């Protein structure tokens, strides 16, 4: 059962990454595509918590770093998505019934917006530090903001189903919570 859950999660990631690199380049807005992998990680974080999401984020980032069109240093997206997973996991509302609570829609959107900004910024800052490639900050900011808008726009269609999926896959915890 645990293996099955892992396979399903990795499958979701794979689909997200493939769509991100091959479907959305046809639908770019100013050359920017939505961060589907990031949305998967955020959805996982909001249902399963920071630890699970960080691991999933590492896997997702690694996949993004290694998938064909990528030519940046391997580990940049991994680092960004680990941080995103952890932070998004912390955004769950632990005060209101712990991990079982359903976050409100506005909460989810806010989390996606924050995580999109955070993830893209960490990725861009990594590029800035490593000079890989050297891009002016103003251009970076524009891309980051466009990506944020994309991510928020796609959130209603992607995050709730994924959250449902992850909740269904979650091992029964009520026994010892």
């Amino acid at each position: 059962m645990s293996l099955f859950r892992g396979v399903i999660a990795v499958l979701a990631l794979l689909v997200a990454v493939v769509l991100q690199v091959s479907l959305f380049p046809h639908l770019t807005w100013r050359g920017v595509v939505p961060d589907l992998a990031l949305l998967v990680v955020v959805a996982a974080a909001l249902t399963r918590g920071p630890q699970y999401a960080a691991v999933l984020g590492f896997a997702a980032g690694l996949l993004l770093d290694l998938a064909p069109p990528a030519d940046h240093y391997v580990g940049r997206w991994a680092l960004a998505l680990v941080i995103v997973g952890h932070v998004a996991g912390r955004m769950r509302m632990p005060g209101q019934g712990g991990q079982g609570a359903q976050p409100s829609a506005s909460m989810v959107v806010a989390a996606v917006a924050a995580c999109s900004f955070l993830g893209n910024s960490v990725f861009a800052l990594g590029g800035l530090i490593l000079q890989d490639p050297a891009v002016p900050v103003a251009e970076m900011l524009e891309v980051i903001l466009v990506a944020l808008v994309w991510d928020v726009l796609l959130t209603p269609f992607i995050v709730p189903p994924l959250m449902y999926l992850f909740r269904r896959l979650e091992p029964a915890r009520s026994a010892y919570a």
Partner: protein
Amino acid sequence: MAVGEKWGDGPERREKRWRALDGFDARDRPSRSTLVALVLASVTLITLDHAGGILDPARDVVGEALGPAEQFTNGVVQPFASVPRYFRTKGSLEDEVGALEDENSQLRQQLATAGYDRNRLREYDKLSQSAAAQGHTIVAAHVIGHGAAQAFSQTVTIDAGTTDGVHADLTVVSDDGLVGRVVAATRKTATVLLLLDRDSVVGGRLGSSMELGFLQGRGQFGGDPTLDMKLVDAAVVANEGDSVLTFGSEDGAPYIAGVPIGTVRAVFSSPRETSRRVEITPFVDFTSLDLVGVVVPTGSTTDRALVDPRKDER
């Protein structure tokens, strides 16, 4: 714990949650070490990749695995992505076709005139060089008309006139050598009598022996243009291949000195006339005459290109 402090909204609620979330916190604690481990792993990967080459096999593996999936998705999406293009209006397409046709004809014209423009530029270059070498001021002009054969005179019209400082009795040269002299000028055009005309007599000097003679045209324009040279000293022998230059006139009118005219092609002895007839082939190809220069007096003012060698020295 940091979680409790961050989300706490009052001491009493926090107290309650401490107890309620005990289990949650216990499971969350390893998250920190996991986070540190994952961040370190990422940084390690970046460092390894920065060092270069080590992660290429991993890249290859993922590329091999994901490549077909990406290709498949792309193939599925491509037809739909091109759908918006079907809905462009006929009007916009017509506009585009019109614009492209315009551009096409413009480019065609550029292509057609490219060789001509290049040749003209080369002529300008050579003309200005020869003017600079001879130290004369030259007004550049183009041949815009040839005199008809019915006139029985070999003249051309050039597009420079009195407003450009051109008047009668000025030497006309091209980049190859002497062309003729100006016989009449209007405000915008001038008539040039070519060397080939029967009425054209030019004083020439053999380049090798400095002997003088007079060159006269035969009135033939096409074919193999020839000038007849009569030497002043009948005893002088001209050699084939000798070049002939103008010896010039007083005040440089109508001919300035030292302009190449042609080469000696043949020498005929005529015992009856006790003289020698020398045939000269002019340097200038009169049938393709285009850019010429009129040697104007120094200090002439004009609004067209004036090649003045002294300007360069200043």
